[in-house]
């Protein structure tokens, strides 16, 4: 059994490029080992996680030259958060001071499952662990690194259902109320995160979600004010077509693109959608 576990770990490690899927069947890919990691906001370094399975090495790699200038060790398995099926990674606050790495949910089906995150101070490379009961994934972090946004999964089968939650990193407490769209008040969200665009200040995170049997929508999260808006996109696309959509931010608007063509535009102030 131990041998099998070791082999599995080595296979996991060998798959450097692969965004590692969650431990539960059906859970979207949540972390990246190796590869591009996540780029620091100033573009000079990237943070890349490498793992033996039992230990994770978080490396700080110089973008120009590829030298690994600093690194730290974290016990257990954590990776750079993947926030979209297109491989978009995140985890670094806009001020560059806080890096969040996500673990995969641990525990056997009948046991209590927990999910851990490592919150790293990028200056000192010291980290602390934050653990939640249940199946969670990273969603976003506020520009100053004080509020961590997480996805709490309720169901991760064919159509995942989840809530967006906020965790106050300074006060070390989970805010009791989920982050809901104030206009529709829907607490439980459904869909697959496809892609993401972030505004230049790091305050707004626009995530496009695909849905089975419904139109895609954009989840606009204000990471400073802890509020969110769900913007339905009037696109008649099946799920595979929705999975190919991409977002591009430009002055005051969010373009939804498919195969290089803009198919809809969202006004980022009014959230009014125009189909193209």
């Amino acid at each position, binding site marked *: 059994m131990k041998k099998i576990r070791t082999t599995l770990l080595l296979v996991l490690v060998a798959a450097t490029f692969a965004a590692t899927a969650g431990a539960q069947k059906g859970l979207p890919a949540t972390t990246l080992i190796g590869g591009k990691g996540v780029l620091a906001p100033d573009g000079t370094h990237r943070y890349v996680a*490498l793992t*033996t399975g039992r230990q994770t090495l978080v490396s700080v790699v110089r973008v*120009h*030259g*590829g*030298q690994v*200038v600093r690194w730290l060790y974290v016990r257990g398995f954590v990776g750079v958060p993947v926030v979209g099926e297109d491989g978009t990674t995140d985890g670094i606050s806009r001020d560059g001071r806080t890096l969040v790495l996500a673990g995969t949910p641990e525990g056997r089906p009948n046991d209590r499952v927990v999910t851990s995150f490592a919150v790293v101070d990028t200056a000192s490379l010291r980290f602390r662990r934050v653990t939640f009961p249940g199946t969670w994934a990273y969603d976003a972090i506020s520009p100053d690194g004080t509020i961590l946004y997480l996805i709490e999964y309720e169901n991760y089968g064919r159509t995942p259902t989840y809530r967006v939650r906020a965790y106050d990193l300074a006060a070390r407490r989970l805010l009791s109320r989920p982050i809901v769209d104030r206009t529709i008040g829907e607490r439980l969200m459904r869909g697959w995160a496809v892609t993401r665009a972030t505004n230049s200040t790091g305050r707004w995170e626009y995530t496009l979600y695909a849905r089975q049997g419904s139109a895609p929508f954009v989840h606009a999260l204000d990471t400073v004010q802890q509020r969110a808006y769900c913007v339905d996109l009037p696109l008649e696309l099946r799920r595979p077509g929705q999975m190919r959509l991409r977002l591009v931010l430009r002055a005051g608007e969010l373009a939804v693109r498919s195969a290089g063509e803009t198919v809809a535009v969202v006004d980022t102030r009014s959230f009014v959608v125009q189909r193209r």
Partner: protein
Amino acid sequence: MKKLLALAITAAAITAGGAHANGSPYSPGLVYGWAGVGAQNSGVRFVAFGMPKSTIVAAVRARDGHVMKSTVVRGFYGVPLVSYDGTAGGLSGDGKSLVLASYGPLPGEAGETRLIVLNTKTLSVVRSVVLRGSWSYDAVSPDGSQLYLVEHIAAGQNPRYRVRSFDLRADRLIPGAIVDRIDRLAIMGGQPVTRATSSDGRWAYTLYAREKREPFVHALDTVRREAFCIDVPLELAQPLQMELRLRLAGDGGTLGVRHFRETVAVIDTKTFGVRRT
């Protein structure tokens, strides 16, 4: 003692994230993280990280810092340094083989030194070499078939050692030392200061500093298993010899010995004639 040394080395490598982690009292040692080895021609650098029971080896793309591939190998290995100025070695001239080394025991003490050879494309271990005694990496032939090692006989202020070769295809240590073709010396002394390697990876020129003697360049032909020791006529104390650097010029035809920005001697790499400048 050996265990204590190994533990200290491991601890140093694990805690010293971001620093060169040299734990060898008798050789330039090994490097973890940082620049690793490679990147000049291939655009890829290979970096090793010591973990508690294993080593992570990563291939990092130099132009954007992407980790293209990584692997975990059992044991504690690092990228070998070949001189005290931090020059790293281990990559064959054809770029296909990567040699990583472990720390061995102190010269004269019981124990073994381990080296592994990885395929740089797959990062799989293709050869494992275990030698009794105190050894360190010196060079590898351009095609990765011959490994050159330093067998340490004595450490301290006046280290003594000999260069040996290991046939990686036949998996055997070649009997006898690589003898200097000029002076017929088998046992060498001095501290490796810096190294220059010919563009094809065939010739490894290592400048050694010596106490109360002039420095010399050890020119190792990694294809023909031949070495030439060339005394460099410079009246410099050993600390100043440690500041010397080598630079190949004229398509590898001359080897400049430099002290900061000044060329102080030039060696003809065909005749090994030395000219002081």
